[in-house]
């Protein structure tokens, strides 16, 4: 047990902080060894709990308790019904709201697009690792968007994707008609996700490069000697060797997509056109801030929390399984 191992470092700390004087005084007075031992054992038994207590209390008081309050709040009404219990009324209303359904469908779309969001930094990192010409330059350029705030990124792409913007001008110069990138409900969500991937893949790229640092170069050399093509090297050597890194990037990218696209949505589409780019967090913000429906917003938050919990647990399972394989 780790607790037993940490005995020497635990005792001086706890004695020094809380009961140093009391302990020595007690030992002197009684002078009996068994008594001292019993007291010491008890302190050692409690010491770890005391040491983790601040962290646990902070989590319980500032995380779990507000979470429970929020869940509890989601079962009460809004406006005139403020404070009265309405059972599952808010949840029924949510699932009947076509806008919330769109938001959930968009979460599904994000899950479907997740492999793309992971493959792009993965492939680019592979090329950098394989030292394509100019790889140093690309490494810094790829990371650059990751330091920009989503609001700035959104504003830049608002200009680029505007109906009379440069992208449509380029399309026009090659004879294609203009596309209303952010005004067409079938296109807008893909544009926002695309911009989000562009803005954040630098971070995943760095994680991949860190993963490559642990890759055994001898394996690559061996594959080359055996005459493997680039595709075979990627598929049979790099991907298996980096499986844990890939899974980690999957987890972080998914969380990033579900929780940090608000800024982009707010700036680029405001949830539109026709409500097609709603995500749960945008819906929550809208209901709480604009519609004055805090209890409904809590119900939506609870559902988002459940989704995140399921996604998180699934991914922890995956990580554990791969850990066992190693």
């Amino acid at each position, binding site marked *: 047990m780790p607790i037993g191992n940490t005995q020497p470092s635990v005792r001086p700390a706890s004695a020094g*902080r*809380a*009961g140093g004087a*009391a*302990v020595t*005084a*007690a030992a002197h007075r009684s002078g009996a060894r068994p008594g001292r031992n019993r*007291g010491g054992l*008890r*302190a050692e038994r*409690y010491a770890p709990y*005391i040491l983790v*207590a*601040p962290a646990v*209390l*902070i989590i319980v*008081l500032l995380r779990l308790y507000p979470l429970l309050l929020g869940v509890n709040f989601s079962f009460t009404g809004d*406006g*005139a019904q*403020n404070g009265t219990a309405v059972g599952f009324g808010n949840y029924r209303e949510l699932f009947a709201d076509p*806008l919330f359904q769109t938001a959930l469908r968009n979460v599904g779309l994000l899950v479907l697009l997740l492999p793309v969001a992971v493959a792009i930094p993965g492939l680019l990192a592979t090329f950098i690792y394989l030292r394509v010409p100019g790889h140093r330059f690309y490494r810094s350029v790829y990371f650059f968007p990751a330091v920009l705030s989503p609001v700035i990124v959104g504003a830049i792409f608002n200009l680029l*994707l*505007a*109906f*009379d913007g440069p992208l449509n001008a380029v399309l026009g110069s090659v004879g294609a008609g*203009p596309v*209303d*990138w*952010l*005004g*067409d*409900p079938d296109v*807008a969500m893909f544009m926002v996700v695309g911009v989000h991937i562009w803005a954040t893949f630098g971070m995943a790229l760095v994680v991949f490069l860190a993963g490559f640092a642990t890759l055994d170069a001898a394996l690559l050399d061996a594959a080359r000697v055996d005459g493997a093509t680039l595709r075979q090297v990627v598929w049979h050597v790099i991907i298996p060797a980096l499986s844990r890194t890939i899974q980690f990037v999957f987890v972080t990218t998914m969380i990033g997509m579900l929780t940090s696209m608000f800024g982009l949505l707010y700036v680029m*589409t*405001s949830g*539109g*056109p*026709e*409500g097609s780019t709603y995500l749960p967090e945008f819906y929550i*913000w*809208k209901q*709480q*801030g*604009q*519609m*004055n429906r*805090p209890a409904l917003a809590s119900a939506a938050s609870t559902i988002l929390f459940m989704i995140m919990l399921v996604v998180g647990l699934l991914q922890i399972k995956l990580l554990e399984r791969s850990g066992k394989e190693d």
Partner: protein
Amino acid sequence: MRQRAIWSAVLVVGLALAGCGSASDSGKSTSSDGKLVVWDWKSGEPFAKSYLDKAKADFKKKHPDVEVEFVAQPFDQYYTLLGAAIQSGKGPDVMLFNGGGQIRDRVDALVPLDDYVAEDRQRLAGWEAFAKDGKTYAAPVTLQGYPIYYNKEIYRKAGLDPATPATTWDKFVADCAAIAKAGSKCFALGNKEGVGIQFWLSSLGSTTLTTAEYDSWIAGKRDWNSPNVKRIFQTWKEAGDKKMNSDGANSTAMFNDSFALFQSGKAAHVMGLMSDVGHWQDFNEFLTAEKLGVMKAPVVTAGTTPTLPYDGGIGYAVAKWTKDPKVAADLVRSLSSADALKAFYADAGAIAADTTIDVSQAGPAVSTLVSELKSGKPALHVALSSKTLDLMGRLSQQLLSGSVTVDEVVKQLAASDQAG
């Protein structure tokens, strides 16, 4: 002995955490004796300085020993922050509101001001936007209206007479065809936020609905199945189908991209505002006062008379949890006193709620607007709930893209309007 040490350690940790909690708590309580806290999103702006100075001086005369603190919140998050304050039952004593849905949704947290502001009733206009169920909850500072501005220069280029803009919808559509031929768009439209339809509804409301329909709409008895109500959405769709709007309306932000289109002379008309942004002062600056015109809404339904749609734009309200509502109400009165509002009009370029202010210096467009205030009526969209407005915004985008019919739109809006 050891146990005692352990318990004292637990106690220390517990107290430390409790201390954190109470520290953040005491920071929140803002209401105290001899001090009033005001929340708004204006007081940080340079143009509001002389207005606030005048208002504070006026209040000082009545209550020399009461201190007033203005807290400027970012407008983006204003109602989110206010919602949190209302939820906790603590917060500012006096707060700024937009007229219409934003204040009506929150009257549970406000004090009715009717008894306190009786003397100001006649002098100020725009009270209806701050009233619910016969009670008034805020005193208006500015008026917000939805006039149709037009660019006289584009009219001249298109061979139209800038002095006599179209008075009927059919003539207006014909004029727009002439304007299109001359290379300009008819309307600068930004409907990304779904606000374009709100302006459309209110600007064309008086000439599409009959007087009886208009008045019962404002009174809350809205017949969504009336052919005239449908007509409003049909003209909206018609303008889209006939390419009268600027391109990409559903991805153009009204604030301020669509106004920029109008200012830069790319579109002949815009349904703009009277105060704050997208209004005569902005347009004068770019187009010059001579080129800027204000037109009455073209008549869609025969027999109707155009009136200017306007409401109280912003106004100050008093929170229920304030210690002495009388003192807070006096501050609200000072914030809409004649001197203060005059400063607001001059510096912020808003049409102030006090209609006795002289505006002849600001160009012909403003004079036209102010002269129409007397016959003006509350705007149609301000009577709708935030929820219905949000739905209408999305449906209006669908109308422009052709993925919904007018019948379906009024059906959904009727359901939302009746529900909430």
